[in-house]
């Protein structure tokens, strides 16, 4: 061999470290196509495939069986699942809660408390119309169900139906704390042309006299109002206070992250959201922060989000359509596709952030006509939001 090939074999006398490196790279390249591509039989019986979260063992079946016939078990069990879902962002828990409610929902008449809980689940899934139906059923049977009125006000508010939402708040009179009724009303007033007065009113509510849930709600409301007024320093103060009180309030955490991102404070955003990667809305903000930093660590999250949105789309769900629009616009840089998602989202929900993403995507896609529904809504309701003003001018 050596004789035949003349001096050629010297190419193999390279430096050892170079060869080792080359070998390692080759092994890596060659192993890519086998490592993750196919199902496999694990090498060891002891390999752990899944760690089971609380309440997801098959063993809980007797409780679930019992819940079919006993309301006093069904209600707390479903409530437990809903609260686990809230605390962890794990959507499967909502399904478990639905399974517990199912036999009760099919009864006629269904117990009002079951209907209210079902409405809460439907609201979490952004099935707002169906949620309102259940609440109306519950209220027919039990016109003084404060929880039903409050949930109804929340759903209507998300849909941008402020007048009806205000009426729901009115039904709370005599059924709920005065402070809760104030929060319910003033938060709506702040969306319909009375932002400054409403902000002052909510800020003036005595924090100590509020129940703890209402306290977090107050902070969240104050933070968002301050942001819409353009007082970002105050907004940050409220969000920070609120998150100290209610660290599991994901809605507020996301809002706070958005505030930081708007100011380019990417590192602080990452700090705020560390440990929340498993929730799509949080992951989106983490990816955005990495983009601001100009590093490539967001790539992983980008791929995961893209896959998750795809599955959601295939399932025909629109829980995270607002996030999807933002993802398509700011991460994937596909303004046309982002606009479609923002428009679909606008049909479902009409919070200030929904108006914002519709205006942003319409502008990016050079489709000012597509922004018209949001602009009309803002004008009709008297919605004040400095973040929207930037996009309102060119159209008016």
């Amino acid at each position: 061999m050596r004789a035949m090939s003349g001096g050629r074999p010297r190419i193999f006398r390279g430096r050892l470290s170079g060869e080792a490196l080359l070998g390692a790279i080759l092994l890596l390249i060659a192993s890519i196509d086998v490592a993750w591509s196919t199902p496999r039989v694990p090498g060891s019986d002891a390999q752990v495939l899944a760690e089971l979260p609380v309440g997801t063992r098959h063993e809980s079946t007797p409780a679930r069986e019992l819940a079919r016939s006993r309301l006093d078990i069904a209600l707390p069990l479903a409530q437990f699942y809903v609260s686990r879902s809230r605390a962890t962002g794990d959507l499967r828990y909502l399904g478990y809660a639905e399974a517990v409610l199912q036999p009760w929902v099919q009864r006629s008449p269904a117990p009002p408390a079951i209907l209210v809980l079902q409405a809460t689940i439907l609201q979490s899934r952004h099935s707002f119309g169906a949620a309102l139906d259940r609440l109306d059923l519950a209220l027919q049977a039990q016109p003084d169900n404060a929880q039903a009125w409050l949930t109804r006000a929340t759903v209507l508010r998300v849909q941008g139906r402020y007048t009806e939402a205000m009426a729901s708040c009115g039904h709370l009179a005599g059924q709920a704390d005065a402070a809760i009724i104030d929060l319910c009303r003033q938060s709506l007033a702040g969306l319909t042309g009375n932002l400054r007065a409403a902000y002052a009113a909510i800020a003036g509510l005595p924090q100590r006299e509020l129940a703890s849930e209402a306290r977090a709600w107050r902070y969240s409301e104050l933070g968002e109002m301050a942001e819409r007024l353009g007082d970002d320093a105050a907004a940050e103060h409220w969000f920070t206070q609120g998150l100290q009180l209610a660290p599991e309030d994901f809605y507020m955490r996301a809002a706070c992250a958005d505030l930081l991102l708007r100011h380019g404070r990417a590192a602080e955003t990452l700090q705020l959201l560390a440990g929340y990667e498993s929730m799509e809305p949080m992951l989106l903000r983490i990816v955005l922060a990495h983009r601001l930093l100009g590093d490539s660590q967001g790539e992983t999250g980008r791929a995961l989000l893209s896959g998750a949105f795809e599955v959601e789309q295939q399932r025909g769900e629109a829980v995270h359509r607002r996030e999807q629009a933002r993802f398509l616009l700011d991460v994937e840089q596909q303004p046309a596709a982002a606009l479609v998602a923002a428009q679909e989202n606008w049909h479902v929900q009409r919070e200030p952030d929904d108006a914002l993403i519709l205006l942003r995507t319409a502008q990016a896609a050079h489709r000012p006509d597509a922004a018209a529904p949001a602009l009309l809504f803002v004008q009709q309701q008297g919605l004040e939001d400095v973040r929207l003003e930037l996009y309102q001018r060119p159209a008016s």
Partner: protein
Amino acid sequence: MNTRTALVASLALLLSPAAWAHVASNGFLVVQVHGQQLSGSIELAVRDVELAIGIDANRDGKVTWGELHAGEPQLMRYVAQHLSIGTPNSSCPISFQSLQVNQRVDGNYAWLPFTAQCRGDVRQLNIRYSLMQDVDPSHRGLLTLVDGPISQTGVLGGADAAALYSVVAPSRGRAFFEYLQAGIWHIWSGVDHLLFLFSLLLPAVLLRKNARWEPVARARPAFLSILKVVTAFTLAHSITLSLAALDVVRLPSRLTESVIAASIVIAALNNIFPLVTESRARIAFAFGLLHGFGFASVLADMGLPHTARLISLLAFNLGIETGQLAVVLAVMPIAYALRTGVIYRRAIMPWGSALIAAVALVWLVQRAFLPTG
């Protein structure tokens, strides 16, 4: 298999694997139609399997492979009760094969392959899916229904447990186009075939004289040399591809895949320690026969539509040749232009060949000696 899924899964591995468990519950059903036969797989999250049938035998809140494996018969019974596939006239009884594990973005899944035998050619499929519905009504089955090169997706479960899908045989024109595309794509993604071809083509612009490589003087001999190699490779793999696709000859895929890897090693080493310098076309022909079996296994994965077998086979083959020709036309003029320089003979030839041989050697070891699946 699916490179995109693989990529996402690999990315997930870099993160904490437990941190990604928060999507809604999905099952993945793949059904592939081959005439009267169906093949496919059903995948359920290990966590969902536990909730449905209870496999955490030692109740420590962790499901191990041993526990899942022990629950295999129970899982098969559960799936058989809650998933049925049939034509409008009759059911297609499912038989399961052994359980495996697949890693997805949100954790490990129990992966159960199956086959099903229908009576008569499948034109419509009735799928009833009620897995998980009693414990998690929001669970959905994401269906991929594959018929030859055409696949459709669907969502199963929820209020309507049963759904009807039409399996429309593609028109001849559509089939031709789809298989042509698949052939072109396979040459692009099938790196092993390209590496083999290039190992043989690298020296085509050179001449072996006195144990040294020298550039050819004119384009004509280089062109003829390339033409001979490409033609021999094409002829050989077309023969075996057709024989295998039409079920005349069959070879175990482990054998063909290993020999394909070995063929690359040999062809690449031949550039560094030349044994065969004049008649590389013969190597191309001899190993081309085996590469044909490799192409055939891709085609077998896709399946040939029963209505347009020959035309689809022809289209797939033409696609491979088109893709191959495009690569050769793009690369060989550059090789020809570079042939007189020292870089081509001293760097690209030996080091390129060494690199190819090394990669192929790793493949050879993996394919021949490591356990599959």
